[in-house]
């Protein structure tokens, strides 16, 4: 896998200065994505997964800043890129889809214009040619009568349709990687599974890799080859999706799986992990999950490293579960 990697994030740290000291949203994250691979990133709200995605796009808004680490994309270190170099990468080689389709599109510009500009930003292409490509892209994501839709405004579309437009836009330049930040969370369940299926198919066709960020393990299980679990800005476990879901090593992953509604007995109360995320500007010294962890012991006061337990699996815990597996 190492020879084939498209994206390699090493020790990435993104901080936001606050009056209470720096808020470390992404804390020394290491990640790799191979070409054509779908990597799921799972974590609860505030775990840093969205900021991780934005960091990889160079889109962390001020006053936030990447303060350490490297983002190697196809051999180039993106953290050293100038704004102009970033612009050449964004939308062309790495595209991004955001969570809320109702706000991702400019309300006062026609859909067609917003899609065409994504093409024209990266290649010298006539408006007519761009329009033809946009129409094809709209058909691919399942938008009916695309010709009329081209002239429509976002408010004339449903949420699902808008997200399809956003996805079609992201796919226009056939990027090597799409970072999808909870793209189906704002949609209802049937639309969600359709879009999930379509995105997987489209990316398979073009060989596009995906980083699929979600708080929903169920969604990630459907789409990702591998999963990384984030907690308080750090990756606490990563591995192949099946193995990770079946035999989680980190107590936090186990807690997430146990709290999935699908795993609850009928009539039983849904389970949850007690407690809440620690303050990112004031993390505990050792394992950030220890205060909520049923297995916590004195050993947890030292921050464990992310340690490989097998070729494909790594966990950041002093007493991982399912050791035998």
């Amino acid at each position, binding site marked *: 896998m190492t020879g084939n990697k498209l994206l390699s994030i090493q020790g990435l740290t993104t901080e936001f200065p606050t009056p209470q000291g720096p808020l470390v949203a992404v804390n020394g994250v290491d990640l790799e994505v191979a070409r054509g691979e779908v990597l799921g990133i799972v974590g609860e709200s505030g775990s840093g997964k969205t900021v991780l995605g934005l960091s990889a796009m160079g889109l962390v808004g001020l006053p936030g800043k990447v303060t350490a680490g490297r983002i190697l994309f196809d051999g180039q270190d993106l953290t050293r890129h100038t704004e102009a170099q970033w612009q050449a990468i*964004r939308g062309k080689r790495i595209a991004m889809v*955001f969570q809320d389709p109702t706000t*991702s599109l400019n309300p*006062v510009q026609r859909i067609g214009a917003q899609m065409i500009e*994504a093409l024209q*930003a990266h290649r010298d292409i006539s408006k007519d040619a761009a329009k033809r490509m946009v129409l094809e892209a709209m058909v691919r994501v399942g938008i009916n009568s695309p010709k009329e839709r081209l002239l429509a*405004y976002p408010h004339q579309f449903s949420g699902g349709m808008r997200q399809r437009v956003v996805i079609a836009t*992201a796919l226009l330049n056939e990027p090597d990687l799409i970072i999808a930040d909870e793209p189906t969370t704002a949609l209802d369940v049937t639309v969600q599974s359709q879009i999930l299926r379509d995105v997987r198919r489209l990316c398979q066709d073009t060989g596009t890799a995906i980083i699929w960020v979600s708080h929903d393990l169920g969604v990630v299980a459907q789409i990702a080859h591998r999963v990384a679990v984030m907690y308080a800005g750090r990756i606490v476990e990563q591995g192949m999706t099946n193995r990770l879901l079946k035999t989680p090593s980190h107590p936090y992953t186990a807690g997430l799986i146990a709290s999935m509604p699908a795993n609850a007995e009928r009539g039983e109360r849904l389970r949850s992990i007690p407690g809440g995320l620690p303050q990112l500007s004031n993390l505990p010294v050792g394992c950030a999950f220890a205060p909520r962890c049923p297995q916590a012991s004195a050993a947890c006061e030292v921050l464990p490293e992310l340690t490989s337990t097998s070729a494909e699996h790594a966990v950041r815990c002093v007493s991982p579960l399912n050791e035998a597996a």
Partner: protein
Amino acid sequence: MFAFVLRRGMQSVVVLFVMSLIVFSMINLVGDPVDMLVNPESLPDEIERVRRDFGLDQPVYVQYWKFLTGALSGDLGNSFVFGRPALTLMAERFPATLELAICALIIAVTIGLPLGVYAGLRPDGLGARFIMGLSVLGISIPTFWLGLMMIIVFSVILGWLPVSGRGETAVFLGIESSMFTLDGLKHLAMPATNLALFKIAMVMRLARAGTNEVMAQDFIRFARAKGLSSRRIVRAHLMPNILIPIVTVVGIEFGTLIAFATVTESIFAWPGLGKLVIDAIVNLDRPIVVAYLLFVVALFLVLNLVVDIIYAVLDPRVRLQGDEE
């Protein structure tokens, strides 16, 4: 759209009628114009004659009825002082005020908009702070004082610009205006700048607030994720969105420029409507005051309508009431 304009037209007629009633009855409470018009040493029957000639001997409701029937046929009465129709007098003065207002508006937008957007894009920069400091000055410095200072500096001390008056005019495209001669422009420069100053500050603040708000939106982030240049984002995504509130406010402000340029016109002896109405108020020239106030009401009614229509053009989400789907 037609239905909308028609309905607003009918509403406007009602508003104008009510305003005429209020204006007419209020002005009849103030002073006695005959005292102003006739030499106080005249004989009593001389005074009576003048009173009869102007119809001021009749009860107010009779005077109003006369005014109303006249108004419906386009006659708002004759000036007591000049003995000529009030509308004609106003029409003679209107071009001077209009050119002053248009110049002031152009100055306000061309200076205020770019500075405001700049300040909004770099809210923490030194430039932005300086600009916002200027805008506070612009809003708080009294117009009349600044006008006098400008005259002292640019006319009296430096001798660059003429002190007062409208200067030479020329006819261009059938419009006579001092905008088309160098001498005219020299005369325009100070009063227009003086009148524009408050509006520059206002447009600046609006543009900055709008920019701050829009730049934080998801669709700007998505536009950046498409790899668009900052220039393209400002032009295609920021501008159309901030222009919506700015057009609304500037449209109405254009009305106040025309209607309330009085102070500036007095300082620079600009032969416009403002000067006419100030003189009319001093001389209790009722027909002119009434005609002027009704003109101002009509002006705002029309501007409101125009602003609403432009608003609907700029923002596709807005549908004018009375429009059929």
